[in-house]
């Protein structure tokens, strides 16, 4: 993991002092709410329906056990005893008091955590594959460049007041677990024909009311030149992105309005003029950062591991959990464990202080004190010996986190929705809970197989419904909560936008509708065909028929 040096600590401390001063000025009335608003947002502080919400970054999804303990402490002391892991590798607390935030931030800073740029019209917390560094076939650990981007984007003098929020994601393996094509900038680490490492650069992806998959602006950008290229993109956006209409201010609209060719031309022109201005990272600095992400000292383990294989045979529930929640690790004898934060009927992504502490302890005992946060609102133990899997599973069971449903129908993403969010049209969490209860039967879930349901409470799409195999969007219909259903979205390297299947459903009807869609899939699927593959093969017609009774 990256460890702060004196410079990083200085910046972190100065940020806390600055925000303390800003909060004091706000409380004394020296700053108006209008002036204070962008400042607090850039520290992750939102004013929600009932209280302040604080969003804390988990940079590129990597947490130490000590950091997790601190998050638990924050939940207990400053909130109501729990936190909420989000779709952007952040954690949110929903019941925060403004006057306590500076002290809270000071506590976070002691363990390299912060709320910097988790909101506001600036470069947001950079996200990365939650299996970074431990998955086979990775060209390079994306956290190296993510840390470089974190530093470069922190309090950037020129790009802290962009037209709109700006999200960057990085992935380093062929399989894209970071949804890079759904981001303002997506970086896919690749090799060119000469074997040199660089990036395929995607720009202008985004959800919201106009879902757009990113445009590939460069097939290969040499690694060394990344930061100057990012500056060129951001400068074109900062100067020419729309500021007159919040719904048209994302970079995706600029790319669309200029046309991809013209956008690329302007970026390349800007880059030619500025690429030698000393923005790129000195090579030594990249090497310095990379050192923090070198693989830990793994034990040499002979495989197969008999105890593990025996436990799988002896215990069906354990075997089921292995099949969904455990991924192969690049090191023989190790495994990657996904801790599902999706108990049946629970709130997706929620964890109590006690659960966080238990996960921290498990990480210390079994995962080299490291934890990951995934954008699917789950946690990951990245370095577990296969021989320890059974113990880990049993311990997770004690805190209600042994749900064998990672990647299945009840592994639902949901935004906070009308229960918390002032922008919402409809509730998201209760819909997730009811779907989860409907499909509680684990055998049925495993029979259905890989399926992503994603729920947003309004068109802002924080629940990523556009990228859900099944997407659910809450709308307001004459004062009633109503839900639209989209099918066929995806967030991986085969990214696609879900299509509206037909008229929406009432709050009561939406769960039945989801069940009908799944029944239709089970009827028509071919052997080993996942939901998304089946949908892509047959299209919407059979699903429409099942839902609305008429074939058109």
């Amino acid at each position: 993991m990256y460890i702060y040096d004196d410079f990083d600590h200085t910046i972190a401390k100065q940020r806390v002092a600055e925000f303390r001063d800003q909060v004091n000025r706000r409380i004394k009335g020296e700053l108006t709410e209008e002036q204070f608003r962008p400042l607090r947002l850039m520290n992750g502080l939102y004013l929600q329906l009932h209280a302040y919400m604080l969003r804390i970054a988990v940079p590129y999804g990597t947490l130490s056990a000590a950091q997790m303990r601190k998050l638990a402490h924050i939940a207990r002391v400053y909130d109501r005893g729990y936190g909420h892991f989000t779709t952007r590798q952040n954690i949110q607390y929903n019941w925060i008091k403004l006057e306590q935030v500076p002290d809270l931030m000071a506590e976070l800073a002691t363990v390299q955590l912060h709320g910097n740029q988790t909101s506001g019209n600036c470069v947001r917390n950079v996200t990365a594959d939650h299996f970074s560094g431990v998955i086979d076939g990775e060209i390079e650990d994306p956290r190296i460049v993510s840390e470089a981007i974190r530093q470069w984007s922190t309090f950037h003098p020129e790009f802290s007041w962009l037209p709109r929020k700006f999200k960057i994601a990085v992935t380093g393996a062929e399989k894209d677990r970071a949804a890079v094509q759904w981001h303002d900038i997506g970086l896919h680490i690749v090799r060119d024909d000469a074997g040199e490492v660089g990036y395929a650069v995607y720009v202008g992806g985004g959800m919201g009311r106009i879902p757009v998959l990113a445009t590939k602006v460069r097939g290969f950008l040499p690694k060394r030149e990344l930061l100057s290229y990012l500056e060129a993109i951001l400068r074109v956006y900062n100067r020419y992105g729309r500021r007159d209409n919040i719904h048209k201010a994302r970079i995706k609209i600029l790319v669309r309005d200029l046309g991809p060719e013209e956008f690329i031309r302007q970026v390349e022109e800007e880059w030619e003029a500025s690429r030698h201005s000393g923005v790129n990272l000195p090579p030594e600095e990249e090497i310095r950062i990379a050192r923090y992400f070198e693989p830990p000292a793994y034990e040499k383990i002979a495989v197969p591991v008999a105890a593990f294989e025996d436990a799988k045979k002896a215990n069906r529930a354990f075997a089921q959990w292995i099949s969904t929640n455990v991924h192969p690790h690049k090191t023989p004898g190790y495994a990657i464990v996904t801790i599902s934060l999706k108990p049946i009927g629970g709130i997706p992504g929620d964890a109590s202080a006690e659960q966080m502490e238990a996960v921290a302890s498990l990480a210390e005992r079994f995962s080299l004190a490291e934890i990951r946060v995934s954008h699917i609102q789950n946690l990951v133990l990245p370095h577990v010996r296969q021989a320890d899997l059974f113990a880990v599973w049993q311990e997770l069971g004690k805190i209600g986190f042994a749900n064998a449903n990672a990647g299945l129908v009840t592994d639902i993403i949901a935004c906070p929705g009308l229960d918390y969010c002032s922008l919402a049209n409809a509730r998201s969490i209760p819909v997730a809970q009811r779907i989860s209860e409907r499909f509680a039967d684990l055998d049925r879930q495993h029979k259905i197989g890989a399926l992503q349901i994603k729920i947003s409470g309004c068109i802002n799409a924080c629940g990523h419904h556009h990228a859900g195999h099944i997407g659910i969007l809450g709308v307001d219909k004459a004062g009633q909560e109503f839900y639209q259903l989209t099918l066929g979205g995806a967030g991986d390297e085969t990214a696609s936008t879900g299509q509206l299947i037909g008229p929406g459903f009432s709050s009561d009807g939406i769960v039945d509708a989801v069940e009908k869609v799944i029944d239709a899939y089970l009827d028509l699927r071919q052997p080993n065909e996942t939901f998304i593959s089946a949908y892509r093969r047959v299209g919407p017609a059979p699903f429409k028929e099942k839902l609305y009774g008429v074939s058109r």
Partner: protein
Amino acid sequence: MASPVNQVGSNRVLDRNGPITDGWERLADDETVKPGAAVLVSFQRLKNEHNALFAEAAAVGVEVGGDVNLDELEPFLPRLGLIVVRFAFMRDGRPFSVGRLLRERFHYTRDLRAVGDFIPDQILFLLRCGFNSFEAGPDFSVDALKHGVAAYTVWYQRGVERNVTIAERRLGKENLGQESA
């Protein structure tokens, strides 16, 4: 009547340390130039009347918006003594890019000033993008300004002031920033 900028309405001009005296007069497009005055005019007027302006005034400054076409401004740069960039609203981020481009790409070296609804907490960012003076309203807190510019002592990025970046400090290259200025 034209009057010095630091008395226009109740605005005043500041630099990073606080209020300064300032002799520029902001002229409406139909106001005549007092010979020997330092005048601040709109970009439209500059384009229309640059010959007369440069002949009559002791010094000429121009006010532009964040949407300024810098290629159009470029021919005038060597003779301008002041460029004022207006924030259309507090969260208008374009002046930051305009400042940096004027300094780094167009090598403009004289007074670069921001005007508009920015707040003291943004001044450090503006300084780092090449601005050196600020025209602000009466509510603009000089205390907050002084606090704000001292808020940070190290940076990850290089600013227009050619500071040593943190990455360079890590390498022990304490002087690199200044040398390449």
